[in-house]
């Protein structure tokens, strides 16, 4: 007899579990080897606490009342719970604080789209280490994690979360127009972006600059191309990115990093450097992260921080695809 489970959830049977376990171990070994202690937090938190981290986008899709009438929520990611944990349990700890996790999180799904309602994330959080050194450390671990997973072709996109916010402030685009433009940038709707920018009345040249900027991605040369488009906000963002990129080069880990001025993460707490991970074997993003220098302050400790998370199931699929590709090639 078949007893259904909700769409977007799944059972994992021994054969897959063995492979996932190997992947888990390989990743945690990389994290622990670099001094990141593994932590676990409850899957259920107070809704109020999660919303403090990011009320707009990371709000939980699953909320319910407990026996005393308090509103609880299932976590939708791990950065906010770890920010909460760091502020409550490590308020006076020696910095920087290095933590890693391997945890399930929960998000809403659209019907018939094959989206996961429950999924696992493996990631690290580095709290109390400012840019660029902290960012570089995160990128280095991310690369080591991808290597440990056998994804040697994976690429890390490096962008700047503040670029367009500052650029729009510089162009004096406020209110609804600003939100509309940022929304188009986030979904990468260039046709709509151009229309919204024109509507904001900032002049044709500035419109072209913004659109062109969002298309710049590649190696170091991208920073010069961006700088030639001008403006103080661009100057500041490219300076931040340039500094990070240079530090990555010095550490010899810049080869797999793609500078991407069109990158925008959809979680609202990022500021400064942001990251995304791609592998040629998969059409979906494998993970992401970045700096969240203002998040901890919402929990009462003003500390710079950065981290990343990999979607474990997707990394597993990419791993399988890469393995069969290598077997096909040999």
């Amino acid at each position: 007899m078949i007893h259904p489970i909700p769409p977007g959830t799944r059972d994992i049977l021994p054969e897959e579990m063995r492979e996932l376990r190997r992947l888990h171990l390989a990743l945690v070994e990389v994290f622990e080897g670099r001094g990141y202690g593994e932590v676990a937090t409850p899957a259920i938190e107070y809704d109020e606490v999660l919303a403090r981290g990011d009320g707009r986008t990371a709000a939980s899709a699953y909320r319910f009342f407990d026996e005393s009438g308090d509103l609880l929520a299932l976590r939708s990611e791990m950065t906010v719970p770890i920010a909460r944990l760091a502020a409550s349990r490590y308020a006076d700890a020696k910095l920087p604080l290095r933590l890693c996790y391997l945890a399930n999180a929960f998000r809403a799904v659209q019907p018939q789209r094959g989206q996961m309602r429950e999924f696992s994330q493996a990631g690290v959080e580095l709290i109390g280490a400012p840019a660029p050194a902290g960012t570089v450390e995160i990128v280095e671990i991310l690369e080591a994690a991808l290597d440990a997973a056998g994804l040697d072709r994976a690429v890390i996109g490096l962008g700047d979360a503040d670029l367009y916010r500052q650029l729009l402030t510089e162009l004096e685009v406020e209110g609804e127009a600003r939100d509309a433009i940022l929304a188009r940038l986030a979904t990468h709707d260039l046709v709509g972006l151009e229309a919204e920018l024109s509507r904001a009345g900032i002049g044709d040249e500035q419109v072209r600059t913004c659109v062109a900027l969002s298309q710049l991605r590649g190696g170091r040369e991208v920073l010069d191309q961006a700088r030639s488009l001008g403006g103080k906000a661009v100057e500041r963002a490219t300076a931040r990115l340039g500094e990070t990129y240079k530090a990555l080069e010095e550490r010899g880990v810049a080869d797999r990093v793609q500078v991407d001025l069109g990158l925008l993460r959809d979680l609202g707490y990022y500021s400064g450097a942001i990251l995304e991970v791609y592998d040629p074997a998969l059409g979906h993003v494998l993970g992401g992260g970045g700096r969240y220098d203002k998040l901890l302050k919402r929990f009462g400790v003003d500390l710079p921080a950065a981290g990343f998370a990999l979607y474990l199931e997707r990394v597993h699929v990419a791993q399988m695809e890469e393995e069969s590709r290598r077997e096909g090639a040999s």
Partner: protein
Amino acid sequence: MSVEVAGTAGAKPDGPLKLAVPRGALLGGTLDALDAAGVDTAAVRGGSRALIFPDGEITLVTMRPSDVPTYVEAGAADVGITGKDVLLEQSDRMVYELLDLGYGRCHMVLAGRKGDGRLGESQRRLGMMRIATKYPRIAERHFESTGRQIETIEVKGSVELAPLIGLADGIVDLVATGRTLEENDLEVREEIVECTARFVANRVAHKLRADEIDGLTARLREATAQ
């Protein structure tokens, strides 16, 4: 924007660039634009029933326009061409819209029977209009944003039939020349949005195959610029 975790179905931005080509009304314009952009489309024009046409650097894959966002989002096709109507109706599909190709111009409209006051009367007396459409999300968004309520009736075939035999008060549909409306004694009451063909890309392919995709975008922009 909500954060979603899509499934893990394998799709690969490896090998030749795969371009999803819409069959149907947009096919002619699409093949002309591709030819002008230096992509060989002779094999597709040959009237073959095949669905996949490898051509060196670019593989053309033909499909229904409404399937294009599905294939491109998953990365099964790296880039594709489809109508803005399809993208609006499937606005939850995460694809990058890179270029307005300008052809395939038509309008999403609200239409009702000629000289018939039923749309207004239903709105006034029942507080709600019954609208038949193949584009339920576009219709709902339009009426919601203009502060009106509708009962959406989704149909798959000739939507013009619905108001003629009393299934609905009006229709929301895509109109190119207006001849079908005319022949069925219907008239445009409201313009909702203008739609043209758009060039879209998979998110990962856009990052990892930047040069190929930027090159093709530039060629298409030049080929379709009027």
